[in-house]
């Protein structure tokens, strides 16, 4: 009878888990984009002693390496989705076991709640996965502690000390405190020993000793901490809130798995279903709280970056009105999207340009977060030396970023610097994920294959071996050098024009337009250029008959309307702004008057963002 019942329960449970698993897989595969979870984190795991040595010097915890090992597989959508599904199921299973040991009459399915919480958090493309792994391992530790509760004093204290030490070095410090809190709660409410207060005291001493010994040093740095501390665009508002969520969830699960506490609690709530609703209510509250911690716009950052990385520039432009002022990288990518969709010279002000030229090309006012994007830009332009230079700078952000390593290897190959290329590829091939492509690139060390690679990567653009200096303060000088070597380099041309326009340097703009426009082959002078030329001629007091015929009639008409509108508001720019924005927000004139940093006085500090 019992056997039949057990088999029946087993089959029912398996059925529930299978259904939940399929549900999770479909949701993750269809709704989420696993690769998005890796953007910014750039997990890279190499079976290499130099790699492990490096991570050791970073005072990183084992959980970081563990997380990275799993996260790297998110590069493959199916495998990544499967991996996340398995981890979420495992988490549910572990908490189920915790409840079973506590002999709690919990409603079926409550163990799925943590998994659902994690799944919800994944929608913000943040650190949900790392949290998942922490929960999983925390759950295992809790489980282990539950199993030894009824064992002899010395075994129990030994196990508790071991789990505290492991938690201390592997997890965040506050997760350790959470686990520590459970040990205390278990001892007080569950343990049958008379020596419970001795055990509690010993645990407190051990924890205090651990903290004292490593006082002032970083004890462990998880993927989360790394992402949160180094990436100002990470989608969280408060690091400590996130940590407290870890503790909260562990506490709730742990407390509800504590038989005595639940029994006492339920005595006051006679109805079974009310008790269950309380659990569900608390869980739902946590979901809301958890989700509310993430900056909504942070999600957009990731999506913009993802679409830019796969070349879906039209989709990038869909976010043009959703980007925050301080999000320099997203604005930079929007400008790139303008170029790649052929709209830079016509619709430069379709995207917000309050940063002026500082979101067109990243100059000295950057932090290391931005450097890889500058590398991307120059790579697209064909200025490989600059692409390599900026990639080297970005490596200070993340030495083992596969994106950066691939860029460095590619640049070295294109520059025919085979020993350097060999070095980076040797690192990449130590990774399961990049091994194949790295081995393939290692066969390219000859002129023929390098030439093919060059055509594939940058088409007919020249590599510009002869440009000597990288001018990281005056990129316009490099752009001019590019154009002198390759007059057909449209990207360099449009960026140069846009750079001067955004800087309000009309003289330089006019000069460069005269010098280089012939190589580009415009059917007609682009709209924005005409708007700027109009301002230029007026500022130089050139005779009208000299330029009026060169400017499109519609543009002249609009300019006239722009000025009329201003006059209607008695030249009061503040009052006129809304109206002008509505009708002329896409013009250069509006930019110069209202948006240019030279007008607004926007303080662009060194190393901002």
């Amino acid at each position, binding site marked *: 009878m019992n056997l039949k019942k057990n088999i029946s329960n087993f089959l029912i449970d398996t059925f529930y888990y299978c259904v939940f698993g399929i549900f999770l897989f479909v949701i993750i595969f269809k709704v989420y984009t696993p690769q998005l979870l890796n953007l910014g984190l750039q997990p890279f795991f190499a079976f290499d*002693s130099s790699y492990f040595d490096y991570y050791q010097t970073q005072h990183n915890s084992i959980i970081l390496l563990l997380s990275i090992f799993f996260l790297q597989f998110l590069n493959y959508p199916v495998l990544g989705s499967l991996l996340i599904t398995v981890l979420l199921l495992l988490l549910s299973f572990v908490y189920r076991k915790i409840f079973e040991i506590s002999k709690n009459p919990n409603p079926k399915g409550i163990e799925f709640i943590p998994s659902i919480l994690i799944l919800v958090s994944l929608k913000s493309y943040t650190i949900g996965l790392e949290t998942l792994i922490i929960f999983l391992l925390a759950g295992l530790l809790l489980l282990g502690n539950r199993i030894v509760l009824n064992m002899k004093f010395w075994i129990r204290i030994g196990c508790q000390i071991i789990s505290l030490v492991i938690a201390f070095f592997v997890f965040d410090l506050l997760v350790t405190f959470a686990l520590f809190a459970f040990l205390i709660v278990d001892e007080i409410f569950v343990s049958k020993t008379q020596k419970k207060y001795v055990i509690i005291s010993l645990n407190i001493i051990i924890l205090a000793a651990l903290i004292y010994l490593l006082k002032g040093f*970083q004890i462990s740095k998880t993927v989360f901490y790394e992402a949160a501390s180094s990436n100002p665009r990470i989608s969280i508002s408060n690091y400590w809130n996130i940590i407290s969520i870890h503790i909260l969830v562990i506490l709730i699960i742990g407390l509800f798995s504590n038989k005595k506490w639940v029994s006492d609690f339920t005595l006051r709530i006679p109805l079974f279903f009310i008790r269950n609703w309380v659990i569900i209510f608390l869980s739902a509250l946590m979901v809301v709280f958890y989700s509310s911690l993430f900056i909504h716009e942070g999600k957009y950052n990731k999506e913009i970056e993802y679409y830019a990385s796969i070349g879906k520039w039209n989709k990038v432009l869909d976010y043009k009105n959703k980007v925050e002022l301080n999000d320099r990288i997203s604005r930079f990518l929007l400008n790139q999207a303008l170029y790649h969709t052929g709209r830079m010279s016509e619709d430069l002000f379709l995207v917000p340009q309050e940063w002026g030229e500082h979101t067109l090309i990243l100059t000295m006012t950057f932090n290391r977060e931005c450097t890889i994007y500058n590398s991307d830009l120059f790579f697209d332009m064909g200025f490989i030396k600059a692409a390599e230079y900026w990639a080297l*700078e970005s490596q200070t952000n993340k030495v083992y970023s596969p994106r950066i390593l691939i860029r460095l290897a590619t640049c070295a190959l294109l520059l025919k610097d085979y*020993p350097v290329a060999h*070095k980076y590829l*040797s690192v990449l091939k130590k990774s399961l994920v990049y091994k194949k492509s790295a081995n393939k690139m290692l066969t390219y060390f000859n002129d023929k294959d390098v030439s093919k690679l060059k055509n594939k990567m940058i088409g007919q653009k020249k590599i510009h071996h002869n440009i000597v200096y990288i*001018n990281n303060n005056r990129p316009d000088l490099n752009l001019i050098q590019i154009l002198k070597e390759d007059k057909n380099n449209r990207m360099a041309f449009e960026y140069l024009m846009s750079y001067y326009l955004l800087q309000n340097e009309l003289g330089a703009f006019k000069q460069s337009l005269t010098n280089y426009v012939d190589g580009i082959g415009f059917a007609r002078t682009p709209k924005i250029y005409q708007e700027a030329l109009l301002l230029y001629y007026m500022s130089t007091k050139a005779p009208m008959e000299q330029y009026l015929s060169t400017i499109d009639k519609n543009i002249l008409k609009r300019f006239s309307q722009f000025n009329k509108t201003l006059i209607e508001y008695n030249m009061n720019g503040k009052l006129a702004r809304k109206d002008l924005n509505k009708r002329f927000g896409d013009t250069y004139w509006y930019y110069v008057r209202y948006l240019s940093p030279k007008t607004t006085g926007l303080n662009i500090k060194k190393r901002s963002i």
Partner: protein
Amino acid sequence: MNRIKTYPIFSFFSLIILISCHNSPFKNAKNIDALPEIFPDYSGIVLPPNIAPLNFTIEEKGIQYFVNFNSDNTSGFSIKSRKPEIVIPFSKWGKLLKKNRGEKIRMVVYVRGHNKVWKKFKPIENIISKDSIDSYIAYRRINSGMILWEDMAIVQRNLGNFSESDIISNQNTENNCMHCHTFQNRDPNNMILHMRRSPSGTLIKTKERSLWLSTKTHYTLSSFVYPAWHPDGQYIAFSTNRIHQNFFGRGNRINHVRDDASDIVIYDLYNNEVFTTPEIASKDFENIPAWSPDGKYLYYIQSSHEFKHLHDSLEKYDLLRIEFDQENKKWGKPEMLVSSEKTGLSVSFPQVSPDGRYVLFCMADYGYFTINNSSSDLYLLNLSDTTIRKLPVNSEQTESFPSWSGNGHWILFTSKRFDGMFTLPFFSYVDSTGTAHKPFVIPFENPASYFTRLTNMNRPVFLAGKVEYKEKELLEIVYTSTEKVVFDSIHVDIDALTHATVKNEPSVDEENTLYKKN
């Protein structure tokens, strides 16, 4: 009965012997009259008797590898491996070196190819010197970026084994920049370190003193930069520099560091005073000081101020020295030792040998910051006859930051010879005639690390022992309030100093000078 019992045993042992004979590389090996390709190239070198095992990778294609280490005195030991990476056991290596001081050792490499045939290569012969090498080096771990940095640390590495530890890491100092680590006469107890960006200052730690200094004064160009500690310990020569950098695209150089002005000043550690003399603080560019081992001479490089407005490639530095009477703080007259006009090259990083006979230095086609200049090579000046010799340790890539071991028989320098990008320390034995032998790279436990290590071992210096200071101790000094150094404006003729004198409070701080617009 006995025959029946012994037959299987006999057969078993015969089989074992047969198999062994069949697999023994010695009998069937085909002799190859060439040295095997190994990486790093540890062939034909002179080794110190206290160096860690020189693990290497065999670059000959094969499925099995066998290396026999032996000498005339010892039968040695062998290593068999299915992988080309050869990791030499510590104790066996140590014994081999110990028993063969002053003698030759051989490495015989066998490689078994896909056709199952063993090839035996010509033995690699190396000599074990009688002269030991200093037990440690200290270097700066740094990425390859030119402007930004993140992870940086001053690291000490035991040359007798592979152990490394951070002396101090910038992860505990808000990821600031650490540079110009220097030890007085290779004494690990006396160290200097500059830090840039908060916390910013100069850390000086000796057994008697723990100082965190703010070294910019009203009369000096900048905070202290390149240091040289007087052998007696009281004085430290520093350059002060207004630096700017140009960044080259890929090619021979990645960045060029150039000064708009530079001088040399002396810091009196006991009295917290800075002083100088017009000869080393003129309108010309005095830089990169170094002391003679007896402390009587200050060596330095100097470039004409006329180069300031000319193209980068024309600035060249000479090597000079000036006598210094430390008792009376009196100076002699500068003496030209190596003229860039005569050599056509620019001198940098002079280092006087412990016996005072030689000056080891770099020369490159221009400039002084030679780490990114592939034309930089090492030279030796014989002070007795003033002859200059280019050392046979150079490569097509840069050689820079040279230094001497305590006994004067080993030189340490950095080179980018493997790939032109990453810096590694190299050692070379210098015999009593001043001849430098073939250099060898620092050994790593995993010989594949040369291909995968992504950080630079920058500016390595010898240490006579381990730095015992705990990082916590050093950090406590860094996070105390800074002590300002005082310029001795009473005894120094300020007006005579063309460049050390600044009439108004300078408007640029040390950091901004590094990011000055081109």
